[in-house]
């Protein structure tokens, strides 16, 4: 039997049972909206543009934050990887900062930046810079010391050293860090929207809850799951960039 058909058996059965249970009154629809109602709510939100707008806002903040976090993580990772003493001196502070959940900064970020893209993407950047920094730092330390000696002998500038030796050497590990960071970016963005930021899918979710629209709540949760799967699929494509090609 086709493997796709086999893997569809469980979800189709569950959804059918759920729909039937709601139809006969065995399942309380005020808590568990039936699948057809969820689909309808999602379709209406898509048609009226609210789902598209909210999705764009969430992805905008997640992407911007991820970009900024990656830039900061790579820069910091390379700098600390090459400056052993500085890395040792800053290690306790960085370990402490790294242990603080990014979401804990939400009230502070709201006070400093107010509502909007800057606040949300700043928190996402904070969350995503650490895995990238750790991966970059580890990769930078593993650079063959003789390569750096050769660069010094050839009197290469810092930029030349960065471009021809350091970046190619750390790139694969940076991609691994980036894969982890991509997972954080969407989760953190949605959480900030649920907690404080009146924009995006998280805001739509909390508003749906506050106004008793459980069908729309479930539709948004399903949509977030789809976005998460797409993000996961995209990040697994990054593996191709990190694996060296054989000639």
């Amino acid at each position: 039997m086709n493997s796709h058909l086999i893997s569809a058996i469980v979800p189709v059965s569950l959804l059918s049972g759920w729909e039937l249970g709601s139809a006969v009154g065995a399942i309380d629809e005020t808590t568990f909206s039936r699948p057809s109602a969820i689909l309808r709510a999602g379709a209406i939100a898509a048609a009226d543009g609210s789902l598209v707008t909210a999705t764009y806002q969430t992805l905008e903040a997640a992407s911007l934050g991820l970009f900024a976090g990656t830039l900061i993580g790579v820069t910091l990772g390379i700098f600390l990887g090459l400056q052993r003493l500085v890395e040792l001196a800053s290690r306790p502070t960085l370990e402490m900062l790294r242990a603080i959940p990014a979401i804990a900064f939400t009230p502070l970020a709201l006070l400093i930046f107010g509502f909007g893209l800057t606040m949300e993407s700043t928190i996402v950047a904070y969350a995503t810079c650490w895995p990238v920094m750790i991966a970059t730092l580890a990769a930078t330390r593993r650079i063959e010391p003789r390569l750096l000696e050769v660069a010094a002998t050839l009197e290469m500038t810092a930029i030349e050293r960065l471009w021809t030796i350091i970046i190619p050497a750390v790139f694969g590990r940076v991609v691994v860090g980036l894969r982890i960071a991509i997972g954080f970016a969407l989760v953190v963005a949605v959480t900030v929207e649920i907690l404080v930021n009146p924009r995006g899918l998280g805001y739509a979710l909390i508003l749906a809850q506050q106004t008793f629209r459980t069908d729309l709540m479930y539709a948004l949760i399903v949509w977030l799951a789809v976005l998460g799967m797409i993000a996961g699929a995209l990040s697994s494509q990054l593996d191709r960039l990190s694996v060296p090609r054989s000639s």
Partner: protein
Amino acid sequence: MKPGYTTVAAIAALIGTMPSALAQEPLNIGFPPSIDMLPAIVAHESGCLAEAGYASSLTVIPIATNVPPALLSGSLQIGMSTPTILLPAVENGVDLVAVAGATIMQAGNEGISLVTRPDLKITGPEQLKGLKVGVPGIMSVADLVFRKWLTQTGVDPNEVTFIEVPLPRMAEMMKSSTVDAVVAIQPVLGGLVAGGIAERNAGEFFSYAADGAIMAFWSASGAWAKDHPEAVAAFRTCLEESIPWIIENRDAANEMGAKHLPFTTNFTPDWRTEILPGDFDYYVSISREFDLVRSDIDTGELVFAAE
């Protein structure tokens, strides 16, 4: 015409066609989804604020405690508040003031009430001993006034277990007997009773303990209010004009409300735009009684008065 002149002419034409809103001062107003806020919605939708020279915008803020930081950061200029949000903030040095009233409690028109599980047949506060009561927010206005009612009727609040239950979750918490009673607010209140999930026979705690007390009001940062007294005055005027209009044109008002409040209700709160320092005396007293605040706050400093 030389290219340089063409550019200048194009820019001048563009500026000339820009919407007049760009010349207006921004006035961002934030509030949780509540029917109490309808006058502000009408003030915006009717164009009253625009006519007064303000480019108003409305933002629904699901969690009311996010309003003060939004005011301080400049994301909002005016935001909904309650005494239990303002008093601790002011006690801790936050520069917030009340700029206009929103709603008051009036006996006979209670929009906040205690409802209980029908199987428990509760008809008075003494039967609440040992039970679990859900409140929309621990140390919120509803919670504090409820505790005051208990003490006034001879029940020790420590003999009742308080659980924070968001309004949308009250129905399922009652149905599953996770809580025995909830302090609910319209329209959830009406829905629970109409759906047979709860009874409203234990007495009207809010009007008993705090008849005539302010429940919600509009706030701003003190610095902003001091720099924009005309904006505060315009906001108050538009609210005052909106209230009688809403009462006369409730269907049209509900249509305006539906753009920002994803529910409709025909419950009419007691709206009151005026706000006085004395409105906070009761709340300072009960806030101290139940340890929400530690000091005697000078209520004279809580209400913005244009110089």
